[in-house]
């Protein structure tokens, strides 16, 4: 197996996911790292955000990650020779007001990674665009939507529930425009 410092973001995330799972801690990768993985690094994230699906003490996570060389700084975990930060944002695993029901898995040489599905990854990015008007997140949602198979009807349903149909329509127009130009 590759050494940690040579792993790409997906390999490292899968490795971390497996190390934690071997100690009984189940985590799902969320946030920008999912965009990196689904877009084959066309967007590059610098951190791995894992949400725990159970309830574990932070001290246990700290001990496990310390065993593979990651030390805690300001709620982040960092290893000097690895460029990515690891964080465990507080759960539950959700996209705005809805819980995440479907978790995807991707097998890497370093282990099996549990992460948001492409559709939920797009919703996760769109949430930042909807609520904070963050254009970078809109671009990330667009990137994933153009390279992965997503369920646009599901995103429309969720957007309506979050009272964001107007912004969803802008996103959909962007996708259609891109499709017509391709």
């Amino acid at each position, binding site marked *: 197996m590759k050494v940690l410092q040579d792993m790409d973001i997906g390999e490292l995330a899968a490795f971390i996911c497996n190390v934690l799972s071997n100690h009984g801690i189940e985590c799902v990768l969320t946030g920008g790292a999912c965009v990196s993985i689904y877009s084959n690094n066309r967007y590059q994230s610098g951190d791995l955000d894992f949400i725990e699906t159970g309830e574990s003490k932070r001290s246990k996570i700290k001990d496990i990650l310390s065993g593979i060389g990651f030390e805690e700084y300001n*709620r982040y975990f960092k290893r000097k020779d690895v460029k990515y930060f690891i964080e465990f944002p507080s759960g539950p695993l959700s996209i705005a007001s809805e819980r995440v029901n479907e978790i995807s898995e991707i097998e890497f040489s370093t282990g099996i990674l549990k992460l948001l599905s492409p559709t939920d990854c797009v919703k996760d990015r769109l949430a930042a665009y909807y609520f904070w008007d963050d254009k970078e997140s809109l671009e990330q949602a667009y990137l994933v939507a153009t390279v992965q198979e997503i369920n646009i009807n599901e995103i429309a349903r969720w957007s309506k529930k979050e009272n964001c149909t107007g912004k969803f329509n802008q996103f959909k127009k962007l996708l259609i425009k891109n499709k017509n130009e391709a």
Partner: protein
Amino acid sequence: MIEVLLGSVNKERVLIYLVARKSGYAREIARYYESELTPIQSQLRNLENANILASQSVGKTRVYSLNPRYPFTKELVNLIEKAIYFLPDEEKQKLTVYRTRPRRTGKEI
């Protein structure tokens, strides 16, 4: 009012202030309640670490607001709005009616 439920009077203050005024920073909230700054800062950080609040830097100030991506925000806001409804009229007025229009630099009043 709901401090027992929330576990801390300063957490109640922070949440009431942020729901009523949509956003705020530690010194402003502490000044409003005439309380110590440190426990207010501490509650803001705790709530942010739990994803209940989000913050961003405006100049040198960290401004907090409710995190709309937190799954219980709607329910939390409903609870806090009900707590605000039960505040004495004078307190409610002070909390919810405040100047938001611009004030020219150097103008004293």
